[in-house]
C-alpha cells in the first residue's frame, strides 16, 4: 500500500522527524484559511500517488492567502497521470540551503533493510543511482539489531554534514528507522531532507510503502488507503482475497497460483491471443472465492472468452468445479469458457463439470488454443 506525502510525513513526525507546519485541505477556501493561519508564504502540494507532481504543475508556491486559494483551486481541478487531485497539503514555505536524500528499503538480494543517503537530494534517487551511483551511501541493517548509532553517524560523516548537524541527523535517521519498522514499511523515504537557512534539518517530502502482508497488525492504517490508485475490480478482488490485475487483452484468466497464472498468460500470448487479466484465486480457494473471481473477470467488457486453469494442490478441483457452477447460476453470461482441472480431486471436479456440460481441456496448450479460438468467435 502506498501512502500519501502528508500521511507519510505525519507518521515521520510521530517519530520525532521535524516537518514543516502545515495542514491538509480538500477545498480552496480551506487552503486559504490554512495559509492565513500559517502566515507568510506557503507551498500548495497536490496529494496524488504518482511521481512527477512538481513537473505536472501540482506543486506551487503562494505568497498570500488569496493566492493560496487560487492555486489550490487550480490544483484541485487537476488530474495528474490519470489520478484526480482530491486533497492538497498546505505547508509553510522553507528557505532551503541544501537538499539531502534519506531512505530505507528492503534489499531482497541481501535479505535485509538498506539505508540509503545522498548529499545529492531533491531529485529522483533512481536518477542519481543511474548517473552518479558513487554519490549514494548504502548501509545494510541487521534486522535483529536495528540501526546502530555508529551507523547513522557514518551516514552523516559520509555525506559531509557539518558536525553540529550530526546529532539532529542521527535522531532523524533513528526516527525514520523506527517508523519503517513499526509500520512494516517496504520503503520509507525523505526526499528532500533539507538544511534550512536557520541551520535546521527538516523533512520537506515523504513517501512510504507498507507491506500488505503485514496489514493484520496495522488495522489503524487501513483508513489511509487511497482507493483511486486501484481499479474497482482490483479493490473488489482484494476484499475477496484474490489477486487480480487488469490487462488489455480479450481472454480472461482464472488460475490458482501466481506462477501458473503468469505462465497461463504467457501461453495465451504464444497461442496468438492476449490475456485480459492476471488472476490468482490463491491456495485453498473455495466455491465462494471462485464465484467472486468470475464476477470480477466478467466485469471487464473486453473479455471475449474465459480460460480457467486449475492445478490442484491446496486447492481442490471439486470445490473449484462447484464454485464455477454456483457462479454460473449467479452470473448469467454467454461468454464461452474453457476449463482445465488437474491435480487434487480433479476427477471429481471434471465429473461435476461434465454433468453440467462445460467445455474442458486436457493440456495447457490445448486449453489456451481453445480459449483463443473461442475469443475469435469459434467454439470453446
Amino acid at each position, binding site marked *: 500500500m502506498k501512502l500519501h506525502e502528508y500521511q507519510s510525513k505525519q507518521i515521520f513526525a510521530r517519530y520525532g522527524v521535524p516537518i514543516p507546519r502545515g495542514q491538509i485541505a480538500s477545498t480552496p477556501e480551506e487552503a486559504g484559511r490554512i495559509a492565513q493561519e500559517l502566515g507568510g508564504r506557503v507551498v500548495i502540494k497536490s496529494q496524488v500517488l504518482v511521481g512527477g507532481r512538481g513537473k505536472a504543475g501540482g506543486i506551487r508556491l503562494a505568497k498570500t492567502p488569496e493566492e493560496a486559494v487560487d492555486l489550490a483551486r487550480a490544483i484541485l481541478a487537476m488530474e495528474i497521470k490519470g489520478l484526480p487531485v482530491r486533497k492538497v497539503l498546505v505547508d509553510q514555505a522553507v528557505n532551503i540551503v541544501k537538499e539531502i536524500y534519506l531512505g530505507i528499503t528492503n534489499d531482497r538480494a541481501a535479505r*535485509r533493510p538498506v539505508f540509503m543517503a545522498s548529499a545529492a537530494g531533491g531529485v529522483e534517487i533512481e536518477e542519481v543511482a543511474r548517473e552518479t551511483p558513487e554519490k549514494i551511501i548504502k548501509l545494510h541493517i541487521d534486522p535483529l539489531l536495528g540501526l546502530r548509532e555508529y551507523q547513522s553517524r557514518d551516514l552523516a560523516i559520509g555525506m559531509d554534514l557539518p558536525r553540529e548537524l550530526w546529532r539532529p541527523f542521527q535522531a532523524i535517521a533513528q526516527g525514520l528507522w523506527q517508523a519503517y519498522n513499526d509500520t512494516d514499511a517496504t520503503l520509507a523515504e525523505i526526499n528532500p531532507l533539507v538544511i534550512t537557512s536557520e541551520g535546521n534539518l527538516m523533512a520537506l517530502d515523504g513517501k512510504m510503502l507498507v*507491506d500488505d*502482508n503485514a496489514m493484520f*497488525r496495522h488495522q489503524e492504517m487501513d483508513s489511509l488507503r487511497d482507493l483511486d490508485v486501484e481499479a474497482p475490480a482490483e479493490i473488489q478482488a482484494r476484499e475477496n482475497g484474490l489477486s487480480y490485475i487488469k*490487462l488489455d487483452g480479450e481472454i480472461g484468466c482464472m488460475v490458482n497460483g501466481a*506462477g501458473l497464472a503468469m*505462465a497461463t*498468460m504467457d501461453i495465451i500470448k504464444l497461442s496468438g491471443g492476449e490475456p485480459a487479466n*492476471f488472476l490468482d484465486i490463491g491456495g485453498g480457494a473455495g466455491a465462494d472465492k471462485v464465484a467472486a473471481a468470475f464476477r470480477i473477470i466478467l466485469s471487464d467488457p473486453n473479455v471475449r472468452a474465459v480460460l480457467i486453469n486449475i492445478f490442484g494442490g491446496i486447492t481442490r478441483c471439486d470445490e473449484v468445479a462447484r464454485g464455477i457452477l454456483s457462479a454460473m447460476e449467479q452470473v448469467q453470461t454467454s461468454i464461452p469458457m474453457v476449463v482445465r482441472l488437474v*491435480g487434487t480431486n480433479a476427477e471429481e471436479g471434471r465429473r461435476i463439470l461434465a454433468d453440467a456440460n462445460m467445455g474442458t481441456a486436457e493440456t495447457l496448450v490445448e486449453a489456451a488454443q481453445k480459449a483463443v479460438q473461442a475469443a475469435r468467435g469459434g467454439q470453446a
Partner: protein
Amino acid sequence: MSILINKDTRILVQGVTGREGLFHTGQMVQYAGNVVAGVTPGKGGEWVLDGKVPVFDSVRSAVDMTAANCSVIFVPARFAPDAMYEAADAGIPLIICITEGVAVQDMMRVRAYLDQKDVRLVGPNCPGLLTPGEAKAGIIPGNIAIPGSVGVVSRSGTLTYEVLYALKSRGLGASTCVGIGGDPVNGTNFIDVLEMFEGDPHTDQVVLIGEIGGTDEEKAADFISRSMSKPVVAFIAGQTAPPGKRMGHAGAIIEGGAGTAEEKVAALQSAGVRIAQHPEQIADMIRG
C-alpha cells in the same frame, strides 16, 4: 536417490489440526506414511487421522517423543514466523514453510536468526518437497510425479505441478522436486538447490522454473556456468507481466525496469541453459 528428504525422513506438521494442515497431513500419510507427529498448542494428547498421528503442544515435546527431523508448517501467516523460530529452537534441521503471505520484515528477521543456526528453511509461500516414491513434505500432489532422475527446482507452486505432470505423462520421473517459494525473502534459493542436485548421484539433469522479479535466476545462471556439469532446462514465467505490478507472489514484480523475463532468459541462455517456451515444452526438452 534424492536431496533433502527421503524414506527415512521423520516429518512433523505444525498446524496439524487446521483445515489445510489436516487435509495435507492426510495426503502425506497416504503417500509415504512417514509423518510422525503434529503440533497444535492446546491440543496435545489428541490424535488425528484415525489415530495415525499424535498431536503435541510444542515442537520440542514432539521432537523429544518422536525424533522428528523435518517440520512442515501450515499455520496462518501471522503465526508462521513464531512457528519457524520454534522449529529452529527445537533443533529441527529442515523446516518447510508452506504458509503464504508472511510479512517481509518478519521474514528478514527469521532469516537472520536461522542463519545463525544449522537449519535449512525452504519457503515460505512454497509447495514444499517431493521425492517421488519416498517422501512428501508439503502439498505437491503425490500422484503427478514418478521416481526418476530429473531434479526440479521452482519458485512457483502450481506451475511446478504442471511440469511434474508433463514429465510423468512422457514417462519421465523426478529425483526430488523442491519448491523454494515466491517470496522476496526466503530460506533456500536456486543456487542452494542446484548445488545439491549437482552433488546428487541420482540426479542427471535439472529443471529450473523461475519467474519475474529479483535477481535469483541471474545468480543461478552465473552458478550454472561456473559450477554445474549437469544439463539444465528452464522456464521463466511472466513474459507478459506489466512492470510495477505485483503478480500475486510478493516477489514477482518488475521494479525499476529490473527483473524482467527477458533479462533472466538471456542470462540463463548465455550460461548454456535451454529455455522452454511454455511449461509443457520442458518435458519435450528433457532427454528421456
